[in-house]
C-alpha cells in the first residue's frame, strides 16, 4: 500500500488540531478496547463532517445497541442511542421531521442484519436521505463474543461452542438488491480510504450504505483479524462502472476477498422529495426548510 513514510507525533498533532476536525469529537472518550477498528471510524467521521463543513448542530448521529452503537457519544453533534436494531426507523423519523439535518445511522452487523434486518430494505427502497455506516466485525462484542449473522460457518463462540452452523449473510449484496442508491465498502485498517468513502457517502443525496470491515481484537483471534483482513481485502477493479447495479452485485458476491470502493451510485428522488410531491399533489403548501427551524411548524393551519 505505497511507501511507508515516518510520522512524527508533534507534526501529526499540529495537523489534526489545525484541521478543525477535533470540534467534531466529544469530550467523552471511546469505550472500545485498545486496537479496535472503530477508533479509525470515529476519526474518519469527524474528519468527513469537518471537510463537508456541516455545522455540529445540523448533524444527527443515530445508533442502536452494540459496541459500535456507542458511537454517538464520541462525536460532538446531536445524537440518539436507541434500541437494539432500531437505528434506521428512528433516523427515518428524524429526517422526515427536518430535511435540513445531516443524518448518519451507525451500527453493527447484529444490530443491522439480525434484530434490525427488517428495517434495512425499507430505508433503502424509500431512499431516505441519510448515511448508514455498518460496522461489520462478525461478532457480538458488547455481550462478549457470541456469533453474529455475518460470522463464518465453523466459527466457535460461547453460543456456538462446537461451531457456528449457519452460513453468513452478505449485507453488501442484500443492500444492492434492496435498492440503495449508494453502496460502498471500506476497511477500518485503511483509514484514509475510509475517510474518503465516508465523505462521499455523506455527500450523496439519498440512502448511502457503507459497509466497513473491522476486526474485533478481543473476541476474535482466529477469523477476522487485522492480519487476515489485511491479506483478503483488495481494491475494486479500476474499470468497474458504479452505475451498473448488476456488475456491482456480481462483485459483491465474492465475499472471500472483499473489494473496497464504490460499488454503486445512482441519483433518484429521495423520501423527502416524494413526500413533498404528495403535498403538491394535495394542493398543500410546502413549509420553509430552514435549518434553525426545528420542525415543520410553518405548515401549521
Amino acid at each position, binding site marked *: 500500500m505505497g511507501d511507508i513514510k515516518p510520522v512524527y507525533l508533534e507534526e501529526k498533532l499540529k495537523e489534526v488540531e489545525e484541521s478543525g476536525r477535533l470540534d467534531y469529537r466529544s469530550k*467523552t472518550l471511546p469505550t472500545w478496547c485498545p486496537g479496535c477498528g472503530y477508533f479509525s471510524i470515529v476519526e474518519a467521521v469527524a474528519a468527513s463532517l469537518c471537510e463537508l463543513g456541516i*455545522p*455540529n*448542530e*445540523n448533524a*444527527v448521529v*443515530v445508533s442502536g*445497541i452494540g459496541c459500535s452503537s456507542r458511537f*454517538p*457519544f464520541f462525536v*460532538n*453533534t*446531536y*445524537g*440518539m*442511542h*436507541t*434500541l437494539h436494531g*432500531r437505528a434506521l*426507523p*428512528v*433516523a*427515518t*423519523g*428524524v*429526517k*422526515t*421531521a*427536518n430535511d*435540513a*439535518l445531516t443524518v448518519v445511522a451507525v451500527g453493527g452487523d447484529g444490530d443491522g442484519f439480525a434484530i434490525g434486518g*427488517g*428495517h434495512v*430494505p*425499507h430505508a433503502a427502497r424509500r431512499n431516505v436521505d441519510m448515511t448508514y455506516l455498518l460496522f461489520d466485525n462478525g461478532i457480538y462484542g458488547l455481550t462478549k463474543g457470541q456469533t453474529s449473522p455475518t460470522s463464518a460457518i465453523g466459527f466457535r463462540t460461547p453460543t456456538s461452542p462446537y461451531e457456528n452452523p449457519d452460513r453468513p449473510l452478505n449485507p453488501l449484496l442484500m443492500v444492492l438488491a434492496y435498492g440503495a442508491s449508494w453502496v460502498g465498502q471500506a476497511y477500518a485498517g485503511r483509514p484514509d480510504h475510509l475517510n474518503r468513502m465516508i465523505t462521499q457517502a455523506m455527500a450523496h443525496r439519498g440512502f448511502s450504505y457503507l459497509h466497513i470491515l473491522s476486526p474485533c481484537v478481543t473476541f476474535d483471534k482466529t477469523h477476522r483479524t487485522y492480519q487476515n483482513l489485511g491479506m483478503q481485502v483488495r481494491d475494486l477493479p479500476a474499470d468497474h462502472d458504479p452505475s451498473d447495479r448488476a456488475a456491482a452485485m456480481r462483485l459483491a458476491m465474492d465475499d472471500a476477498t472483499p473489494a473496497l470502493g464504490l460499488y454503486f451510485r445512482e441519483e433518484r428522488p429521495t*423520501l423527502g422529495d416524494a*413526500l413533498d410531491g*404528495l*403535498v403538491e*399533489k*394535495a*394542493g*398543500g*403548501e*410546502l*413549509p420553509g426548510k430552514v*435549518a*434553525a*427551524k*426545528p*420542525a*415543520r*411548524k*410553518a*405548515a*401549521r*393551519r
Partner: protein
Amino acid sequence: MATDIQISIVGSAGDGTIAAGEILRNALAGMGYKVISFDVYPPEIRGFGKCIARMRITTEQAYSLKHKSDVMVSLDDSHAIPHANEVRDCGAVIYEQGSIVRLPEGGHMSAHVGPGQLPYPLPIRELSEKSTGANRSRNIVVLGFIAGLFNLPAEGFRKAIGKKFRNKAAAAEASEAAFKAGLDYAAKTFKLDDVSFGPPVSSVVAGATVEMINGNAAIARGALDAGIDTFFGYPITPATSIMERLANEMPKRGGRLLQTEDEISAISAVVGAGFTGARAATSTSGPGLSLMAEMLGMGVIGEVPGVVFVSQRGGPSTGMPTKTEQSDLHMAVYGGHGDAPRIVIAPTNVDGCYRCAGKAFEMAEAYQTPVIVLIDLYLSNRYETVVFPARPPFEADLNRKPGKQAAGAQYKRYALTEDHVSPRAVPGDKGGMHVVTGLEHNELGRPNDSAELHTAMSRKRHEKLKRALKHPDFTQFKRFGDEGPVDVGVISWGSNFGECLEAMLKVRAEGIRCAAMKVVMLSPFPTEAVAAFMADCQEVLVPELNYQGQFANLLQAHVARPVTRLNRVSGEPMKVEEIIEEIRRLAGSKAAQKAA
C-alpha cells in the same frame, strides 16, 4: 316534544345495509337531530355475514344506544329474525312482503313479528326493480319509506344520498328514483302512532359547526387541529381509518405521513421525529401496542414527546379484530419493562376523542413523554353529532426551550429542576448538542448507572407526570348525577361510560340515589378525586368490557376499598339494562341492610 327514536337496519353483507345507515344518519344529523350510531359488520369483506346499522336519534343529548329499537328494517330475514325481539312494543318492523324463493318453515319475518309490534310488509324488491330496473337499490327504497312514514323532509335525504354517490352519477340517479318509489309507497300506508319525530332542537353557538363523525375521524381531526407535523403508521383494525384520514388531510397542510414496515418502525420514527421537535404520532390496536412496548420505554427514559392512538379490539393475540373490548388498559398503563410511567388518557365519547387527541400533543410536549390515547372499536366506529368550536382549543407550542446557554457551560438536557421538566434543545439549535440514550444517564445525558442518579432520574420521570393531573382545559375526571352521599356510585372509563351514564339517569328516576364518575386520565391516576367520590358512595360498581376488571384493578391499586365488578366480554357494548339491574341489586341490598 322530545324525540328519542332508535332505528336499526339489519341485512347481509352486500345488501347496502351500512350504506343505508350512513345516508340515514347523515340526513337526520343534517336536519339538526343529535345522532349516536354504532354499526356491526363481519370481519370478512365479502360473503354473507350479518350487518347491522343502528342509530339513536334524539333532541336531548344521549350517551349510548338503547337496548330496544323503535324501528327495525330487515333487508335479509335470515339475519334479522334473531333481532325481532329487540324491537319494542308498539314499534315497527319493516320487511320484504314477498319472497321469490321457497323459504323453510319460519324463514319469513312475518312469522316472527311479536304481538305488540307493528308489521310493515313492503314490496321492497318490486319497488326497486320497477323504479330502477334492478334490485340493487332496495336499501334506498327503505330510506324513502322511512322518510314518508315519519314525514321527514325529503330534501335532507336527497342531500345525504347525493353526498354518498357524489362520484357515481348512475348510482345517484337510480337512488333518486328508488327513494321516490319508497316515499310514494309510504303515502299509501298507515302511520305509526307511537313513534314520531318532533322538531329538532339546535343549541349550537355562533361560529361553531356540527358534524356527524365517528371516533377515529374525531381523533384525526384533533390531531390536525393540534398541528400534527408527522405521522407514521401500519394498518390494523380498528385503527386504520385514523391513518387513512390523515393520509388524505396531512399533505394539504404540508404534513408528512409514512406507512412504515411494521409498528416497531412506526413508533421508532415517532420517537425520532419527536426528538427532532416535530409533533409526531402513530395509531394502532392491541397487537401493535405490544410491539411498541420497548420503544415506548425508550421514549420515557429519553423524555421524548410522542403520541400513540390505540383503538382496542377483542382478545389476546389476533383475538377478535372486529369486536370491541377494553382489555388493553394494563398494557397501556403498565406495558413494557422497567419503571416506565407514561400518560394514558381515555375519552368516553366522540367529542372526547377530538379533545383528547389534540390535548395529547400538548401534554407530550409539556411533560416530554409519550402519551397514549386509548379508545376501542366501539368508540372508533361510533358516530355522534359533535359540535366543533370555531377555533381549535389547542395550544400550538408548549416546548420549554433552553434559552441562551452561559458561555462554556455544557447544556444539560436532563437538568434536575423544581418541576422535574428540563429545557429541551432540538437538532438545529446551536449549542444544544446532546445524545438521547436508552441507558440511564446523568443530567448531561451521558450514560451513568450510579444509585443516586438512577433514583433521581426515576423520581424525575414519575413526578413530572403528576402535573398532567392539572393540565389546563382538560377534563381528567368528572362526576355526574346526585351530589353528596349516594347509595350506589358507578365508576367507569372509555367507551363504556355512556351506558353507565344512561343507567345512572334511569335508576335516579326510580328513586335510587346514584352518581357516576368517568375517569379520563388513567395514568397518572387522579387518586384524590376518585377517593373523594368513592367516600360518598355506599356501594361502588365498576362496569367494564374485559374479563379481569383491569380498570377495577387500577382503581384498587390507588384507592384501597372493595368494589363490585361488572365485566362482559361479548365483543359488543354493555347493555344498559344489565348495569341498571346491578345498581338495583346493590341499592336493594343496602336498603335491606339499613332495614335490618
